[in-house]
């Protein structure tokens, strides 16, 4: 209720105010043709001047700026793309280099291993040769010894047998006959003593 009275009073004040004053000035100034021609004239001047300057000078510049920016951005994108490609090829090259050097390192390692193994084999062989030679010489010595010992044993056998015969029957026996007997015996017992 209070609200309604408030708004009604507002309206009354407004209407009385505006009616009193519009009566003074006579309605809408827009419909007063006194300055119409002047307004049209100045509208043509200001709008026309602005239109001419905008369309001849300002707008082409703005559109040129926009075009320039667009083309520059496209150019930059192109350059960036190119650089990206370049960097990719560089990365590929780098990876290839790393792979190559890895292979090289592997080869070096393999070579070194081969060399070492060869060296070892060589040394082993020469060592074996030496050992074999030594064994051979030792065997030969043994054989020599064996042969010479047989001869010596025969001699000793002949001497001792002649000595024993002399002592036993006091007869000087011919050494050649004794040796023949010893020879005979030794041949008989060859298998017994030497196992040859």
């Amino acid at each position, binding site marked *: 209720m209070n609200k309604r009275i408030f708004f009604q009073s*507002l309206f009354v004040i407004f209407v009385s105010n505006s009616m009193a004053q519009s009566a003074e000035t006579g*309605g809408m100034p827009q419909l007063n043709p006194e300055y119409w021609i*002047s307004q049209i004239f100045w509208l043509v001047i200001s709008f026309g001047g602005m239109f001419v300057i905008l369309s001849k000078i300002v707008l082409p510049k703005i559109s040129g700026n*926009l075009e320039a920016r667009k083309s520059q951005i496209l150019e930059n994108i192109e350059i960036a793309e190119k650089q990206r490609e370049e960097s990719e090829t560089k990365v590929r090259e780098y990876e290839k280099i790393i792979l190559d050097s890895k292979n090289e390192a592997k080869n070096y390692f393999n070579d070194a291993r081969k060399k070492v193994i060869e060296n070892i084999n060589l040394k082993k062989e020469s060592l074996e040769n030496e050992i074999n030679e030594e064994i051979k010489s030792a065997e030969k010595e043994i054989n020599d010894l064996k042969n010479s010992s047989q001869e010596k044993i025969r001699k000793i056998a002949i001497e001792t047998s002649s000595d024993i015969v002399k002592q036993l029957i006091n007869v000087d026996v011919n050494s050649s006959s004794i040796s023949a007997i010893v020879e005979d015996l030794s041949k008989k017992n060859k298998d017994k003593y030497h196992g040859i």
Partner: protein
Amino acid sequence: MAANPMHQFNVYRIGPEIKLGEIDISFTNASLFMVISSIAILVIFNLGSKKNTLIPNKIQLLAELSYSFIAKMINDTAGSKAKPYFSFIFSLFMFVLFCNMFGMIPYSFTVTSHIIVTFMLAAFIFIGVTVIGFIKHGLGYLKLFVPSGVPMVLLPLIVVIEIISYLSRPVSLSVRLFANMMAGHTMMKVFGGFVVSLGIIGGWLPLSFSVALTGLEILVAFLQAYVFAILTCIYLNDALNLHH
């Protein structure tokens, strides 16, 4: 006097009386604001196009955004054939927008709240569009008044209606802008008057209303400029691409 809501629309002479023969073309407050708006547009867009940096500064961004905004609007409504008329529609939109916005400054004058100004703009657009239509299509432009797919019986009626609607275009275009601006400014003045007459006790309500109305009016100022420009585009579209 100052409390009269229509007082703000008074046109009065500034400076000496200029007469061209019998015709009075004196410089008025309306002329002053037309010139101020035009110069403001030129200054802003000249500053916005002076330097071409890859990353635009604020004023350049403003100029370029408005450029692409209007270019997109024209392209969307009137197609690519409307490109030659870009600078006219751009100037039109900016002029109406700046006049509306300058009108929002207290104690200033709203150029577009005068029917004669908006009617001149609308009449120029109407005549221009009609001339373009006849140049592009010859007498075929009259097909605009004969929509396709209408029964023969209804055709006389439809043609009359179409002609009336075509002829009322400048009126509707001009009255829309003029009435919006005048009504908004009158309303703000009325509420401002309430603040004074209700005093410190009751004046807060109309004051808050006035503040809200200011925001609304700024929106309306932009919107009406946009509507004015887009309707021009639509009329231009009719003249360039005859669809009927």
